[in-house]
């Protein structure tokens, strides 16, 4: 008895050390990712310095690399996608938490989350053959006719381009925004809501004066997480953005993004500087998405903690 118990005690120590080491491997992987990408990106940083981020020259033949067109494409498509998704994402979260209950809420929520399960290459395929032709034949002519005085909606209507990429991105980040917003709206303390209703507020007034203000920091967190997803999305964007390293004001024009240029050129890059330039773009992309996911997490966690205290 005594002996077997001491064997178990020793196994206990090893078990804890083992799972702690596994947890440590997460840190090792993340650190290795940053270090290896930095090493791989070093030649580009040495050659171009910080000018890399403000130069719009991208010429693999002359080994001249500037990332500005990709930064521009990524930022424009991601923010436009966020803008498109704000009302639908937050609106469906309100509906799912404040208007319906039980199986309707869970089935509808599941359907929205399924949007996140569809592989991005399938969205890209759908984008090429459904969204781009639709934009070209319906949406872009309409925008040009009614808002054509804005430089945003001028130029040839190709279908494929910044607008198409933004539209697909909006659909892809919708489940992220909607389900995280739903989670934070679900924790708004019931006494606050009941108080508003007892004072005579209508259902909508209760949502406007209690639910939205209370969950606002968390909803911002959800939007930031969605933005982070949009910044890093690769395949669907590559397939519909047009892959041209230009900076155009028009949303109809083809563009390029940080993730899509890596996917397009990495395996065909022959010079060391080209590979380094693409790796530097990848490193920046990682750091930016990491920042957004940390900020988002911080805001949501803070809100959840507050709700927990006030429950």
């Amino acid at each position, binding site marked *: 008895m005594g002996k077997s118990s001491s064997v178990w005690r020793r196994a*206990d120590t090893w*078990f804890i050390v083992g799972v702690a080491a596994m947890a440590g491997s997460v840190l090792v992987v993340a650190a290795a990712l940053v270090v290896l990408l930095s090493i791989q990106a070093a030649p580009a940083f040495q050659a171009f310095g910080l000018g890399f981020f403000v130069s719009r020259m991208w010429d693999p033949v002359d080994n001249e690399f500037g990332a500005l067109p990709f930064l521009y494409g990524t930022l424009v498509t991601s923010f436009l996608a966020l803008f498109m998704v704000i009302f639908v994402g937050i609106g469906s979260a309100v509906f799912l938490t404040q208007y319906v209950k039980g199986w309707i809420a869970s089935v509808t929520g599941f359907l929205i989350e399924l949007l996140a399960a*569809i592989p991005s290459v399938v969205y890209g395929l759908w984008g090429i053959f459904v969204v781009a032709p639709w934009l070209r034949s319906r949406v872009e002519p309409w925008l040009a006719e009614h808002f054509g005085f804005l430089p945003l909606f001028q130029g040839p209507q190709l279908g494929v381009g910044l607008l198409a990429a933004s539209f697909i991105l909006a659909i892809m980040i919708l489940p992220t925004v909607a389900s995280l917003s739903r989670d934070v709206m679900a924790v708004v303390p019931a006494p606050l809501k009941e108080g508003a209703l007892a004072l005579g507020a*209508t259902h909508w007034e209760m949502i406007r004066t209690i639910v939205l203000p209370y969950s606002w920091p968390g909803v911002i967190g959800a939007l930031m997480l969605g933005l982070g997803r949009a910044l890093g999305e690769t395949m669907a964007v590559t397939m519909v953005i047009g892959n041209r390293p230009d900076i155009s004001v028009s949303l109809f024009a083809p563009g390029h993004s940080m993730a899509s240029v890596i996917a397009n050129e990495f395996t065909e890059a022959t010079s060391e500087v080209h590979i380094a330039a693409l790796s530097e773009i990848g490193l920046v*992309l990682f750091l930016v*998405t*990491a920042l957004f996911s*940390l900020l988002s997490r911080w805001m949501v966690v803070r809100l959840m903690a507050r709700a927990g205290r006030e429950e």
Partner: protein
Amino acid sequence: MTGLHRRKIVNALAAVVFALMVVLAVIPLFHVLIYVVKQGLPGLSWTFLTSLPAPVGVPGGGMGNAILGSLILVSIATLVSVPLGIGTGIFLSEWGRGRFGALVRWVADILSGAPSIVVGLFIYSLVVVPMRGFSALSGGLALAVLMMPTVARSTEQMLRMVPHTLREASLALGATWAQTVWRVVMPAARKGILTGVMLSVARVMGETAPLIVTAFGSGFWPTSIFKPIAAVPLQVFVYAISPYPSWQQQAWTGALTLVLLVLFINIFARLLLRDRGAQGR
């Protein structure tokens, strides 16, 4: 009284607007699903599922090698990431209250949100460069890096849902921590953990970007994990951007195969979890 009337109208309008938002949100899902089925189904056949890709102009051909390749890649990823992920999840839920645990949690969240193409670049410099070539192994490892943090966090959540009284009862009976975790806590959370694993498998099954710079793709049957290998999402990508209608048809059928697999796993995983919730009472 007119004020109240107006407020009631606004209230009703708000309900309609919010309902409309949900409808707008699910339209793309149904459009994508219906369209993929409509376009992909005509090409779905035994030949498609079992033969090698055919050159342009040659009828027939399929994604047999890509389907097998995807299965191999996902198996490598699962073998590597599931033990590590579950171990990490155990640590986080049972001993992860300190600073180290908080750090691991933060970093795991960052990694699970990292752009998949960047993870591909990482494995490229870690595995592809030293081994001097694209390979199934590197593709599987890239997918493993994407899976592992997700498995860890979902395992942690499921273990936390196991009531503390169970742990106390086990410890009070003289069991060690390892015995408690292994024989009491883990079995109680088994279905939840399995659900988490299945959902992350479904996620990496459709991953394309990291495979471009690791597994690379291939037109032949897989022979070795040290050689480039085909995968369904890669093949769909290549065919989708090709100018040939017969290849585009194959892309749709490949997309249908992917979507069916992913949806099946998702729905099955959900049902499994619901079942667990019902029994837990």
